[in-house]
């Protein structure tokens, strides 16, 4: 049993990891075909991960309802929403139209009179968009409360933020529209200052972050392939 739980996953990770790495450098058609097949496998495994996610979220909320923890009413809303949307999207396999892989009895995305369409476009879309839009109020509150020129660094950040905020809207760019479009003074136009801030300091900082993340991913991948990193199996060693 130890072999199945400990050694076998490491062997599979090593063999497949090395294989995929090697075929990346071999453009021969048969090798690429095998690589393509493996990519389909990965997508299928990804779909199973989604099932695990559903199991996890439903399990958590059912426990919350059973133990009547504070806010368990919201768990009911989640479960009802989940079940209703799922039922509305169940395909009707018994009699699909000739050109379709599946037929949705309550209407799919193409049927504007169907239940799924109605719930998706008239409930889910506005609700999610509203949640995101509420950010405007929090940003306003945060800008008023916390954006203080307490130190030199904070002051630089504040000035940069104000320039970018104004440089990204027509009202802001129109403030400096009277400056010439070419020559030295053009660099003081709001859109030019915004472009410089995004292109130079921002891009430099972000490139460093991206390279750091990429190196981290490579290091973790190598550790998994060679069996040094085993936390994905659920153990700590």
């Amino acid at each position, binding site marked *: 049993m130890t072999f199945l739980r400990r050694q076998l996953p490491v062997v599979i990770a090593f063999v497949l990891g090395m294989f995929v790495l090697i075929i990346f450098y071999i453009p021969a058609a048969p090798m690429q075909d095998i690589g393509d097949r493996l990519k389909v496998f990965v997508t299928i495994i990804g779909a199973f991960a989604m099932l695990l996610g559903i199991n996890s979220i439903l399990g958590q909320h059912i426990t919350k309802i059973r133990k009547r923890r504070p806010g368990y009413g919201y768990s009911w809303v989640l479960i009802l929403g989940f079940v209703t949307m799922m039922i509305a999207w169940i395909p009707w396999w018994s009699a699909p139209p000739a050109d379709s892989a599946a037929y949705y009895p309550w209407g799919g995305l193409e049927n504007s009179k169907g239940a799924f369409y109605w719930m998706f476009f008239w409930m889910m879309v506005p609700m999610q968009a509203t949640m995101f839009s509420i950010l*405007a109020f929090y940003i306003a509150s945060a800008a008023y409360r916390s954006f203080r020129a307490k130190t030199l660094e904070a002051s630089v950040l504040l000035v940069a933020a104000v320039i970018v905020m104004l440089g990204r809207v027509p009202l802001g760019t129109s403030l400096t529209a009277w400056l010439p479009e070419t020559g030295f003074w053009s660099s003081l136009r709001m859109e030019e200052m915004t472009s410089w801030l995004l*292109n130079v300091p921002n891009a430099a900082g*972000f490139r460093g972050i991206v390279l750091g993340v990429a190196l981290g991913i490579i290091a973790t991948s190598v550790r998994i392939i060679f069996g040094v990193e085993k936390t994905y199996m659920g153990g700590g060693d």
Partner: protein
Amino acid sequence: MLRSWERYLLYGLIAFAVFLPLIFPFDVWENLPTREVLGVYNTIENLQPGDTIVVAVDFDPSSEPELYPMLLAVLRHAFSKDLYVIAINLFGPAGTGLGVMALNDVGGDMGKVDGEDYVMLGFKPNLPAVISQLNSDIKEMYRSDANGKSTADMPILERTPKFQGNIKYLVDLAAGETVRPWIAYGSAPGGYPMGAGCTAVSFADYFSFYQSGQINGLMGGLKAAAEYEELIERKGAASAGMNSQSIVHALLVIFIIVGNIAFFRAVMAKRAEARERA
């Protein structure tokens, strides 16, 4: 710490700044197209009728206010040039519906036919694997489209069986971290140019890819969508929202200034108090 009347005042002013320009629209400030937006526009403009582009609808309803107008503008531009459009969603299942609606609305308006002139492939998990597979065989990964129609004899996919060698341009409208995988596994190995659109919040994140030339255009937030609408001479939701956004941004700057004045007054008052005690 905000007092409760201050909070109501702030929220009230923001609400007014958002609603009033939408209720009473005006056209005062010119929204000039930026280099980044022109990058996407010019690439599509220079394609030939019959070319195929990919539009990745990698966002969900939470980013719909910013990215959906951008999607509509790009689709309108592509269809007006008689380009074929393959749409896909690799961000989350909820994005597929938005893609279907946009394609049906714009495609229907412009006399395009689903399955012949455009297709929405739908959502699949695991970006890197799906993207690399699409470079070599679309139907192997998508046996049916987002509406459940079989892709086996779909004319648009008969014409374009794989991305590599067939796609002239890819536009990724991204709410999350999808631009990087599209560059690494799609555009770079597939050899087709790529542009991106994103929310205003993530605009700064993608600038390094634009600067390096890995994407030849970048559209950030509602402003970029409005610029694109101006370029195709069809103003829509983005242009309507620009006045609200302009005023809200100016209001935020005023809040920051007022907040700082209050902060420095408090600091000076404290210092004066300390001096008096000493």
